[in-house]
């Protein structure tokens, strides 16, 4: 389905070293990866394999130590922190394991603030309303996160992540805090969004079952992609 489409993510020789006290810890040791537009890629690996670091570097949350990362044609490695922050407004949507909704705002406002930050109009299109129906949260929008179940919070987080039509949706263990039923629902929704909207998704997981929802599974170990 995505064959022949251009790579929306191009990673070459990506390295990330953390300085822990006097010790340097190499979390990424030369990662090469291409993800085509509209692809749903699952990155799988054990704890400490570097998959979360890849997620953070790819989302511009932390700078790379070396190598290049091009997202939709923009090289993240060349950007300052402020420019990386600005890039996240339009190019990257995040879904975290812990949902990371703002506790003081309702579900509706959690979505609206993402639009406000990006400077986009806060009216919702018919297509987005349809997505909210698909996510099954259209009747729960007035509630604050504490009144929502984990599954509902994660679906609000997905809606927030895609409201600005990002080039890529990064999901870090999106089902890590959910039970089996909610996990299946969330993974099914991610696959639906990928199929209906052509949303590029890169999902980090340690769960092979969850990874099987992707078009392609990329395995990581010791900071490198395994062949």
């Amino acid at each position, binding site marked *: 389905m995505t064959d022949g489409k251009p790579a929306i993510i191009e990673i070459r020789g990506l390295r990330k070293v953390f300085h822990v006290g006097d010790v340097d810890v190499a979390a990424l040791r030369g990662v090469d990866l291409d993800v085509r537009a509209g692809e749903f890629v699952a990155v799988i690996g054990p704890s400490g394999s570097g998959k979360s670091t890849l997620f953070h570097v790819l989302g511009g*949350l*932390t700078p790379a130590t070396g190598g290049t990362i091009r997202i939709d044609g923009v090289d993240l490695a060349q950007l300052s922190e*402020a420019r990386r*922050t600005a890039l996240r407004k339009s190019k990257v949507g995040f879904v975290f394991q812990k949902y*990371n909704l*703002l506790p003081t*705002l309702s579900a509706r*406002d959690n979505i609206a603030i993402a639009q406000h930050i*990006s400077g986009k109009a806060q009216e919702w299109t018919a297509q987005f309303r349809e997505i909210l129906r698909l996510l099954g949260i259209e009747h729960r929008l007035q509630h604050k996160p504490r009144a929502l179940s984990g599954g509902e919070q994660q679906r609000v987080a997905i809606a927030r992540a895609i409201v600005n039509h990002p080039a890529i949706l990064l999901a870090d263990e999106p089902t890590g805090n959910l039970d089996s039923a909610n996990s299946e629902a969330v993974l099914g929704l991610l696959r639906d969004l990928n199929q209906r909207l052509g949303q590029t998704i890169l999902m980090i997981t340690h769960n092979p079952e969850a990874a099987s929802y992707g078009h392609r599974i990329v395995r990581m170990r010791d900071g490198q992609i395994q062949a």
Partner: protein
Amino acid sequence: MLNKLVVENLKHRPVRTLLSILAIGIEVTMILTLVGLSRGMLDDYKNRAKGVGADIWVRPPNTSIMQFTANSMPEKLVDFFQKQPHVTIATASANFGAGFMETVSGVDFDRFSQMSGGFRFLGGGPIRQPNEILVDDRYARLKKLRPGSMIRLGDREWRVAGIYESGKLARILLPLPVVQDLAGSTGKVAQIFLKLDEPANAAKVTEALKSQLPDYHIYPIEELTSLFTTSNVQGLEAFTYVVITLGVVVGFLVVFLSMYTAVLERTREIGILKSMGASSGYILGILLRETMVLAVVGATLGVLMSYGTQYLINNFTGPALTQTIVPDWWPITAIIAISGAQLGTLYPGMKAVHQDALEALSYD
């Protein structure tokens, strides 16, 4: 959207929000109360000085305008002034310190009434017996006195003969010889008041008198009352500035700590905003708006609380203390509160915006 986030953040932590508002309110009240007290007391002095009805005041050499004046002028000077051109009435008063900030003044009631236009009694009447005393309505209210009440002053019991409307030189009045006797200064007076045929002659007569009595402080009433300012009360202006500075520092520290804690509490939220692409300015804007709301509400509360301190001071403290409401200081204190609060937010705010998004998101 931003305003909604600010309001929801403040509502989310009601205790912290209320404590911050209260702290800023206390800062503002402290300043307004002090300024109101200094101004109220000076206005009270002015009114009571004007209530004497004199056109010229004479005070002894080597005395300061706002200090308790000892009885150091010879009473015979009254006769001297009475004989001066344009002077229609000359009379004097003596003082006796009966307690902390409690002064009893002695006057020649006949001449004093002629000069001031007489007393308006709200209860009782003039002194008729040797152990009787007059008090003004403020003093009577504070001390819960009525005509016939007994009061102890200067180791003697006095019976309140009458309660007069305040604004006549002093809050407690006795005949001049009685006060001179109490103070141990028979034949001496503290101040001499002169009534002229025409108030317009005050400057001319003052000059003439000064040339004859160069060591004495001789003022036309308008000049005298214009000297009733904080800068003429030794140390009051400096004291006021010290308290204002303390108020600002305390308010600053409270808001600083409050915002610092708020930033720490919201580390994860700040990380979430950063993950969505919120710029440093955006996050700082949220924090500064929150502080602005706290400061404005706190300043308003402070103004309202200054009415409370006015009520308490004017009704439950000594008769020497009078607080007025000072609306011209409302914007000044608001600016002090807002700028202090905003400065107090800047450091934790800058810390927040420079926080690593990844660290912030990992914060529990």
